[in-house]
Each structure stands twice: as structure tokens, then as C-alpha cells.
């Protein structure tokens, strides 16, 4: 039974991440390979805030979101100038940069969270305190699951509101024809800034849920593999609408569980999983660009 809750938490985290990435990929029309970096930023800021600053859940969450939004400038500013494959490369570089920073900002012998050793490098930050919401400590898995579902629901409804609104309409126009949108007087730069802010902020929320559940965060959360997994969810499930990313998240979270029942030894399970992701990307691009349930074809 605990296992079901565990899965539910993971599904809700990835739904948040997939929806937030879809804001940029499906609605704005820009592919981003840096998303996992912002998830990691959210998780690390939350971990440091609760560990070293002894903040409770909500303030730490807000701080994590704020930091992620400020860091999203690294994506929105280049998006003003570059598009298409060039922009994808830049997101690759930003993702690698974030990964490099969390991997390397460490110094042996210093306390975790101090300026010299902010992220504890490859060892990660362990022992994140239990989730403390306004004095209530959440120590059972059911309560954590409830929290993650609530947060996922809030994020999903924020996304819904954003995309089914005049602002969401602007995003679709931006994707279709940016120049014409500028010609009717819309401030395209501001729109891109807002889109990336929301996307990275929501990604940070996903990172916070993850960190508060697992109580441990390490640099692998910012790796390219994670970004590729998220992109896979969007490609496979579909982008440009509400259902697609959710379908993708559910399918790709449950996929490794399915793999457990196949006679593949545990040591190579991770490799097989990634191999399947790669194959899925190829299949989707060649045979079904709109994914399982999507609206916008990446073609």
C-alpha cells in the first residue's frame, strides 16, 4: 500500500514538471533541455532553507520559487534573441551550467550550506528536515501524499488558468508568428519573460515536493538525463494542451514499474530505462509527432 502512495507522489511531481515544461514547449513553441536544472534549483533552495535557515515549508517553498524565477532569466533573455535549434543548444548549455554549479560548489571540511560549500557537491544534501506546515509535522506517507496531490492540483489549476486565458492566447500567437504579434503592438519580450518565469517557478515547486518527500537531494536531479526524461514525457504524451503532458507523465513514471516485471537484472535497469526513452523519442518524432494525446505537432 505504501508503494501505491509512493508512486502517486512521483506521478504528481512529474505531472507538475511536465505541465510546466509544456508551457514553454507546447504553448511558446521553444524546446528546453534545461528544465531539470530548475527542478534542482527548487529542491536545493528548499533543502538549504529548511536545513540551515530552519524555515518551515511554506516560506521555504516561496523562496525556492523566487530563486527559480530569478534564474529563469538565463533562459528568457536568450529567448529574446535566438530561436529554433540555436535556442535549444543554449538551454543545453544552461542545463549543463546548473549541473556543473551544483556538482562543484563544495569544499571538503566546510559545513553544508555555508558559502564555501553550498551544495556539498556530489554527495548531495541529506537529512532534509521533515515537512513542517504551520506547525503540523507530516511524517506519514499518507500525509506526504496528500500534500503532494494538493500542490499538484494547485499547480495544474494555475496552468489551466494560464493557458485558457487571453494570455495563453498570446502565447499561441507567439508560437505561430512572433513578428506579426509584435506588429500589433504586443510586448513579446515581456510575454516570454512571464512564460519562462511561470515554467521555472512551477518546476521549482515540483523540486520542492520531491525534496520534502525523499529528504535528500543530489546533483543527478539536474542532469541532462532528467531533462531528457521530461522532454520525453512531453513528446510521448503530447504537447500544446492540458491532457498531453499528464498522459506523458503517467506513462513514463509507470514505465519503469512495468520494466520490473521483465527479466532484466537490476544493475542494468537504469540503462534499459534510458534506452527505452531514447527509442520512444525516435518513434514519436518519426511516426506520431503529436504524441499520444497532444495538439501541437513537433514537426
Amino acid at each position, binding site marked *: 500500500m505504501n508503494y501505491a502512495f509512493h508512486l502517486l507522489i512521483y506521478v504528481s511531481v512529474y505531472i507538475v514538471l511536465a505541465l510546466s515544461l509544456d508551457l514553454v514547449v507546447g504553448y511558446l513553441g521553444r524546446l528546453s533541455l534545461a528544465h531539470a536544472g530548475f527542478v534542482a534549483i527548487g529542491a536545493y533552495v528548499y533543502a538549504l532553507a529548511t536545513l540551515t535557515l530552519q524555515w518551515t515549508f511554506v516560506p521555504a517553498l516561496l523562496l525556492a520559487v523566487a530563486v527559480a524565477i530569478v534564474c529563469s532569466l538565463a533562459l528568457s533573455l536568450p529567448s529574446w534573441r535566438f530561436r529554433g535549434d540555436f535556442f535549444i543548444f543554449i538551454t543545453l548549455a544552461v542545463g*549543463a551550467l546548473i549541473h556543473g554549479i551544483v556538482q562543484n560548489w563544495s569544499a571538503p571540511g566546510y559545513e553544508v550550506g555555508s558559502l564555501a560549500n553550498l551544495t556539498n557537491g556530489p554527495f548531495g544534501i541529506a537529512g532534509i528536515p521533515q515537512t513542517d506546515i504551520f506547525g503540523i509535522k507530516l511524517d506519514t506517507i499518507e500525509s506526504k501524499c496528500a500534500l503532494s496531490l494538493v500542490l499538484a492540483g494547485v499547480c495544474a489549476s494555475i496552468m489551466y488558468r494560464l493557458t485558457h486565458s487571453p494570455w495563453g492566447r498570446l502565447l499561441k500567437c507567439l508560437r505561430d508568428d512572433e513578428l506579426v504579434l509584435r506588429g500589433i503592438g504586443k510586448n513579446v519580450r515581456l510575454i516570454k519573460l512571464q512564460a519562462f518565469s511561470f515554467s521555472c517557478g512551477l518546476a521549482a515547486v515540483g523540486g520542492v515536493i520531491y525534496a520534502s518527500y525523499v529528504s535528500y537531494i543530489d546533483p543527478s536531479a539536474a542532469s541532462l538525463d532528467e531533462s531528457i526524461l521530461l522532454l520525453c514525457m512531453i513528446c510521448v504524451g503530447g504537447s500544446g494542451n492540458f491532457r498531453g503532458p499528464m498522459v506523458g507523465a503517467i506513462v513514463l513514471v509507470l514505465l519503469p514499474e512495468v520494466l520490473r516485471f521483465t527479466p532484466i537484472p537490476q544493475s542494468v535497469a537504469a540503462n534499459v530505462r534510458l534506452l527505452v*526513452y531514447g527509442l520512444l523519442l525516435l518513434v514519436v518524432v518519426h511516426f506520431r509527432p503529436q504524441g499520444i494525446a497532444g495538439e501541437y505537432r513537433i514537426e
Partner: protein
Amino acid sequence: MQIILIGTISGLTLAVIGLGFSLVYLPTRTFHIAMAGVYTLVPYLALDLVNRGASWWIAVPVCLLAAVLVSVLCELGNHRRLERKHASPGAHIISSLGIYIVTVQIVALVWGNETQVLRTDIDKIFHLGSVMITRAQLVAGVFSLLLLITFYCWLRFSNLGLRFRALADNPTEFSLRGYNVDAYRLLAFGTSGFLACAASLLIAYDVGFDPYGGLHIVLLGVVAVIIGGRLSFLGPVLGGLLLGILRSQAVWYFSARWQDVICFLLLALFLYVRPNGICGTATRLEAEE
């Protein structure tokens, strides 16, 4: 002086990788991320062959051939098909990423996830005046330089090289003049595989290899291309040398861990001030047409 020499050598290898990337990017405007897969595959193949008793004289050509084949397959099986369907650049990049993932995971499944080395002996050290340099570094530097010089001579002086430059300038016009664009694209991908293999073996011989370093190095190669000028064939060399020297200075003054961060900061600076790179014109690349 030592730092500059080491930096130059690593810069030359970066230039080779960057050139391999440019070779595909300029004629076809495809981001050939799968080149990192070729880069990863090659040293494992070499090690396997050597461990089975083959000499280096056999192993290296076999690896070169394998690299060329895999690259050509990328074009034949993937990019050409997407081109026929007039797919967007996003589709090309995602599929290239997919090929990269599949290749790397196959390598990891067959040969394992650990770091390996191509040479097991202590390296010889040469003294050139006041500078010390290992044999592996010397080999890397010399071969990279030879490859680059040969390539540029071919590009500049041969008929095939001329046509290749024409293809890079204007693929549509090139096809309208009766040249088989598909064959030239295969040539581009194949040569790119050749260069990636060479760089991979040289670096693997020096510092070893693992399944996950490929993308990182190719990323640095692409940074070199952008800094040097992504619209010119000469860009990778200039960018590579600049990047190599800067990285080695970073290692000296800060620490090895920060060299990548410095690399990306340099990229950010160039993108802001001079997006077309050293070789390009000083225009600002706006997001509109």
C-alpha cells in the same frame, strides 16, 4: 608557457570536434548531437579490439570505419527521412538526441558504466625547453594539427572541397545545378564521424573515457564553434584555440571544477556582444527574420 601549450593542445582537439559538428551544421543546418554517441562508442570498440589481441594498426582503422558508418546511418535512417517530410529543426534535434541516448545506453549495456583507460603504462614525458609534455598530449596535438591542416587544404584547394563549400552556402541552388545533394550530405556526416573518432581516440588515450563524457565534450566543441563563428568553416579552429587556452588558464588560477562555468560565461558574453562569433560579421542576431 606550459599552460598555454597545454591549452593549445586541448584547444586543437576541441577544434577537431567542433569542426566535426560544423561539417554537418553548415551544409544541413542540423544539430548533430548524435556525434556525441559516435564519440562515446569509439574508444570502447578500440579497447575491445585491443583486448582481443588486435594491434593498434587494425583497431584504429576499424574504429574510424565504424564511426563513419554510424554517422552515415544517422543521415540515411533519420535525417534524410525527416528532410523528405520537411520536418522542423526541433524534430531533427530531438531525433538526434534520441540516437545519442540509444547509442550511449547500448555502449553502457555492452561494456559497462565505469571509466576505462586506453593505455595502462605510465606515460613518457618530453621536455621542450622549459615545458613538460606527456607523450599522449604530444600525439594529440600533432595529430589534431595534421587533421585540421589536411582538412583545410582539402576544403580550399580540391574540387570536392569547393563543391562542399558551395553546398554549405546554398543547398537549394546547389541541388538545382545538378549536384547530388544527398551524396554530399552523406559525405558531410561521414567526415564528421571520422573527425569525432579521431578526437575521441586522442582524448581517450590521454585521460580515459566513460559512457557519459561524450555529450559534455561535444557541448564544448559546439561552444567553440559558436565563439569562433558558426557560419564559417574556420570558426571551430579559432573558437577551439581560444577556449582551450582559457580553460587551461582557469584550471591554473581557479580550479579544474570551474573551467566549465568559465566556458559558459564566455559563451554568454559572446552571444550578447557578438553572436556571429569571431569570424562572423558584427550584426546583432534578432529573433525575427
